[in-house]
């Protein structure tokens, strides 16, 4: 069986050139994982995987094609490479296409501590134990927790190898661990599910299994008896996970790929106020052990730390070299790349800088309003910023969480919502690559009964 290594990548690049490619890029990813799910104390599912794929992007001057395969024996690869170059020739020339400026490739790659070599893939028995412990904590916490969608522990390890025809080559390994629980609370009013999780690149830094289960149970229990509220306009507080969704939407609109297509409400807003002055949003691909960290981006450019939004002003877009050329700017180290697709753009580790307020203080500032803890649907229009999503959470009366609400929507426009962020919490916790503290928005339309 063929080995996947940088020598194979170099061979593939040479082969592409031999077929007539003027430039090329090879990405190889090998991954393995194990996931274990328990439900009501019993093993429900064990899943184990091994995968490896090779992706090729071939250029014939300004024409290009992208391809991927799992067949990495040299014989079948040679035919595959020839077909890819042939496909590139059939594509229209695009003056902006091409590899990045070679001067921008880093000569040294940082060690960001992305892999937990000590733990690697966690064995089935240990994985099941952790899942069981977190579900048990949920089930025993309250007699209204009567059912469960289970609890799951996942661990994964991957190795990325990347090389291009202008001499850049690099590789890195990473691990990731996550544990989640979904208990179900039930009373006369019906059933509600609660979800909570922890995720980290380092096994020892996961939050304790028991606390994940207990938090998930609390989240399910507080939803019991939820009702609709009357349609109104009121302040809306997003809990950290829901606020992270807002930050992600902003990053999507700030991505070069959306901007050059005019498919973004941030077209022409670079250097302008796009949020209230207390808002600073940071993208940092170099955070040690960050879930979104990597030593180089999807085109072999160095990742970095920068303010996307600083005191409310949009300071940069997020760009790969294609969208950068189209917009007349420099790439920002945000090229993302999956094996089978040409580079796109994505944030690395993205967060809203914490503010001075405790979540209690923020809730206390609202006389009558909504605290959102779950949202469903995809009602965000990136082109216009129009925002309308299904929500549930807690209704606030006189600064206190009064009762649970559901079957309502919250609507506004992201442009206005970011400009009216009134308070930012001090409760930033890293459990994903995009995170936020609690956020209060001055007023939105809440549709209900």
């Amino acid at each position: 069986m063929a080995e996947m290594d940088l020598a194979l990548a170099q061979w593939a690049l040479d082969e592409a050139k031999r077929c007539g490619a003027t430039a090329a890029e090879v990405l190889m990813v090998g991954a393995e994982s194990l996931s274990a799910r328990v439900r009501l104390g019993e093993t429900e599912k064990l899943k184990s995987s091994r995968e490896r794929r090779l992706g090729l992007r071939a250029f014939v001057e300004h024409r290009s094609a992208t391809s991927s395969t799992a067949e990495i024996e040299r014989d079948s690869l040679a035919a595959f490479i020839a077909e890819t170059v042939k496909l590139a020739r059939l594509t229209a020339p695009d003056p902006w296409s091409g590899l990045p400026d070679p001067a921008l490739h880093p000569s040294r790659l940082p060690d960001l501590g992305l892999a937990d070599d000590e733990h690697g893939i966690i064995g089935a028995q240990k994985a099941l134990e952790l899942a069981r412990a977190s579900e048990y904590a949920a089930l025993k916490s309250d007699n209204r927790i009567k059912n469960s969608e289970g609890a799951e522990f996942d661990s994964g390890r991957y190795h990325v190898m990347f090389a291009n025809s202008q001499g850049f080559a690099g590789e890195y390994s990473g691990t990731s661990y996550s544990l989640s629980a979904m208990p179900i609370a039930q009373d006369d009013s019906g059933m509600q599910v609660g979800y909570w999780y922890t995720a980290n690149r380092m096994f020892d830094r996961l939050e304790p299994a028991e606390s994940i289960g207990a938090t998930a149970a609390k989240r399910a229990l507080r939803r019991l008896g939820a009702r609709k509220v009357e349609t109104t306009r009121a302040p809306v507080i997003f809990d950290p996970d829901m606020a992270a969704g807002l930050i992600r939407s902003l990053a999507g609109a700030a991505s070069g790929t959306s901007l050059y297509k005019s498919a973004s409400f941030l077209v022409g807003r670079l250097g302008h106020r796009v949020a209230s002055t207390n808002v600073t949003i940071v993208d940092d691909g170099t955070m040690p052990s960050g879930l979104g960290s990597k030593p180089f981006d999807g085109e072999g450019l160095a990742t970095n730390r920068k303010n996307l939004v600083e005191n409310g002003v949009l300071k940069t877009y997020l760009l790969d070299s294609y969208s950068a050329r189209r917009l007349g700017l420099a790439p920002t180290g945000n090229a993302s790349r999956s094996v089978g697709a040409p580079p796109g753009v994505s944030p690395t580790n993205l967060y809203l800088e914490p503010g001075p307020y405790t979540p209690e203080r923020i809730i206390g500032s609202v006389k009558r309003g909504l605290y959102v803890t779950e949202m469903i649907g995809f009602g965000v229009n990136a082109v216009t910023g129009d925002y309308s999503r299904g929500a549930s959470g807690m209704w606030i009366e006189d600064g206190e969480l009064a009762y649970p609400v559901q079957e309502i929507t919250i609507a506004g426009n992201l442009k206005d919502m970011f400009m009216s962020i009134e308070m930012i919490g001090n409760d930033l916790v890293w459990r994903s690559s995009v995170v936020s503290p609690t956020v209060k928005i001055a007023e939105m339309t809440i549709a209900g009964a």
Partner: protein
Amino acid sequence: MADELIKPEKFFLNRFGMTESALDLILGTALERKADYADLYFEYRNAEALALEDSIVNHTSKSVSQGVGVRVCAEDRTGYAYSDEVTVDTMRLAAETARAIAQETGRSIAPVHVGAIVKRHNLYELESTPLDVPVEARARLLSEIDTVARAYDPRVKKVMASFAAEQKVVMIVTSEGKIAADVQPLCRLSVTVIAEDGHNRQVGTYGGGGRVEWRYFLEGEKWREYAREAARQAIVNLDAVDAPAGEMVVVLGHGWPGILLHEAIGHGLEGDFNRKGVSAFSGRIGQRVASELCTVIDDGTIRNRRGSLNIDDEGTPTGRTVLIEKGILRGYMQDRLNARLMKMEPTGNGRRESFAHAPMPRMTNTFMLSGESTPEDVIKSVRNGLYAVSFGGGQVDITNGKFVFSASEAYLIEDGRVTRPVKGATLIGNGPDVLTRVTMVANDMHLDPGIGTCGKDGQSVPVGVGLPTIRIDGITVGGTRA
């Protein structure tokens, strides 16, 4: 025609030098502990995509993937292991991993010698695969789409069009000795248009496809309709005013708004959620969950549809399942595991995204049968309400039954007439009671153009929906105008 199109059962045996006795051996390994069932799922997928922007076809891509998944079931436990390296050794290793869920030693069933071939439907036999069309011809069509969309209105500023085609060969080998195999073509043509009028910028999207040949898009010039529809929607939205907020009468147009059924009741009627008792529909078979005007079907056997399959991904021939009959809940959609545990029959709804995933109950084509009203009468009957004709995505919370779906083209109805377009808004309702509020069903049932993809537990599969024009007396519209 390539041999695999005629005998997909032979394709994997030839390709990987596999014999039936090797398959027996691997299934034997999988069943060395106390288990009820084991199967192997082989997949070989070829896909190509072409995309146009700024009037040039500047993106092409191609992918080849292959792999095998080994599954072992013991009571309600599932062990699953997969590899993209298909050899007897890797499959035995996968079988050893998958059987770890069956703790006790000692066989409970004896594997049957592999050989009986499962008869499949013949819903999408094609003369040529969608991948056989020359790239030049595909590129030319995308360019013509660009021209048509731009000609629609001078305010059309950006046109993005793409064509994606794949052919998947699958084979399922079961511990009951059965072999089921299929060749599954799938393609989709999509158009997105951005229109600008000063600082006002709006988007429109349309497309279609199915398990069809290239010429499907040329017949009746469907591609031209896709281009014009995307442009029309973007232009209409330039004039859209703020959408209303609150509970009101909503009329859903026919076709793609059938996403209502998919979210509001479809997911809640999948066997896994009901076996576990975690669905808002759990234990409600035989009860009224809709007005008597509503009959809802899931049918995986409609010719050439995106959601159709000759066999599901466990080798069961697909079927037609009545979910709701004149308002009464009749049935769930099942895969093998959940059917066995619920002592019901599998319904051919066991599906998976790829060899990297274990199957679970999923929808195929889900739709409501036509009623007797005319669409005009439905609109005329409404004094004040919303008429929603096109939608983006939707989602549901299975456990409490609350679901959303987001309109991308909608109008106000005032005094029985469709008037101004309104901005997109999310509609939210309660699955178990939204259909009880259906007071009119028109005679114009239509299936969607073939664009749907459903996500569940991290797995995406192609699906279809369909709906006649219907009137719902009371659903919450999430606009900004309170």
